[in-house]
């Protein structure tokens, strides 16, 4: 599905991602873990095209997407969320879903064409993510937890092959954390390919098919969740030598 070959990225003198090679398999949940500053979010930004690589290549379904702009990578099938939720604050929940569902590239045609009725699809996703709110509510009027759910919901409805979730449960209460965990399990059952960045080891352990641990921009561990729990490298990365 996603193949990352020897990817590098430096910010000034700091090497944020240092020659990472990684393959993300179809239908799997891959968790990317590591301490603060290990390069997890930079790797996400490199895959989604928000940050430009220094060298290396990224391919999706066999197609090299390294030279594509961020919006083109999204069109190619990458869907992502952000650690700090990014929503369109003056748009309603319904409008968020409509924007995400709209994959017609002819922008001017939209002025004169009738708005598509996406009611059923919006209702389905609202049920799936468990967002119990009037769809005419503006994003600005949602609580932090509801904003997180909406953010994930948008990522789900947008046409994609890979769903990348950047710390989906950061800063939310235990109840909502469980809810999001169940949601990710449901998505896996539906055959989704998911990549999760998560600090919380416990959250990913019974969720991930595969765990990748980064430290200082390098992959220091790759294996199953069970192997990660007993890995000396992973423990050292988190707790120090």
């Amino acid at each position, binding site marked *: 599905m996603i193949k990352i070959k020897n990817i590098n990225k430096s910010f000034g003198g700091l090497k944020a991602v240092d020659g990472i090679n990684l393959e993300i398999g179809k239908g799997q949940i891959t968790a990317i873990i590591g301490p603060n500053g290990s390069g997890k979010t930079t790797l996400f930004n490199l895959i989604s095209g928000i940050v430009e690589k220094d060298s290396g290549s990224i391919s999706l379904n066999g197609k090299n997407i390294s030279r594509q702009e961020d919006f083109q990578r999204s069109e190619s099938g990458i869907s992502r969320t952000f650690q700090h939720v990014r929503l369109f604050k003056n748009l309603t929940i319904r409008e968020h879903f409509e*924007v995400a569902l709209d994959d017609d590239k002819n*922008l001017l045609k939209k*002025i004169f064409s009738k708005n598509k009725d996406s009611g059923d699809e919006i209702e389905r996703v609202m049920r799936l993510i468990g967002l119990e709110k009037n769809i005419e509510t503006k994003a600005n009027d949602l609580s932090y937890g509801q904003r997180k759910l909406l953010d994930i919901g948008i990522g789900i409805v947008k046409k994609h092959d890979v769903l990348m979730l950047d710390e989906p449960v950061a800063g939310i209460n235990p109840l909502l954390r469980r809810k999001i965990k169940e949601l990710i399990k449901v998505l896996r059952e539906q055959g989704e390919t998911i990549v999760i960045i998560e600090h919380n080891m416990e959250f990913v352990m019974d969720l991930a098919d595969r765990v990748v641990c980064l430290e200082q921009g390098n992959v220091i561990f790759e294996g199953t969740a069970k192997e990660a729990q007993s890995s000396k490298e992973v423990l050292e990365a988190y707790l120090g030598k």
Partner: protein
Amino acid sequence: MIANYFIHILILVGIYSILSVSLNLALGYTGLLNLGHVAFFGVGAYVSALLNMVGVPFIISFLAAGVVAGAFGLFLIYVSKKLKGDYLALATLGFAFIVYSLLLNLKFTRGPLGIPGIPKPEIFGIVISSNLSYLILVLVIGVLTFLFFNKVVKSSFGKMLGALRDDELNLRVLGKNTTKLKYYSMGISAFFAGIAGSLFAHYITYIDPSSFYMSELILIVTIVIIGGLASIEGSLIGAFIVILIPEVLRFFALPSSILGPMRQIFYALVLIGVLWWRPKGILGKVDLQ
């Protein structure tokens, strides 16, 4: 006499409504902090006047005013597409100064002398010479403009513009080409500023660069802010308030050297008053940032 005076005021309200509604598309709906709108207004006025004076029919001159202004809008986005917020505002303001300087120094625009004797519009052999017929022309074009913008902002294209205003990066990761959206928004916005310029030139029958400078820019931005960002109806109300209220000053026998600055003070007071009362403007849907 009084009726003619009111018709004159309504014509100006109509022209400034078209101008401010078009600015609101870029500023309020798309979030492009464009301070170069007055340049599109000026370009439209000059293109229409100059073409019509060399014998090009009014309808073609009128449309050419929109097309050339639209092209200027596309060019402005092309050179400033990587800028945002305050930087974009400065770049677009600089663009307005450049256009002003060109109008002031080019030979064919006659520099500070301006262009006198611009003919009244002639449509299918009918000369729109009276103020009442001109008001009807402005009303027809104004209503069509209003209907078009209403369609734009309520369409899925309009929702995309709102999303672009709120978070460009998030819209890009949803697979939308935001640069293209900016081109379209600015192109449409500048096109309508151009046709407003054409209506202005053929109504006043004399234009010079000072008609398209800072005071005009302040006037247009004031209309949009008073009416409210991301509200077409707000821009219409804003145009009424900003054009009508200073007319009260005419009833005081003030010399013109005082009347001009008084108008500017009036705009500022109305702006402060409205924002004090309603921080989003009268019908604004988004915050001023």
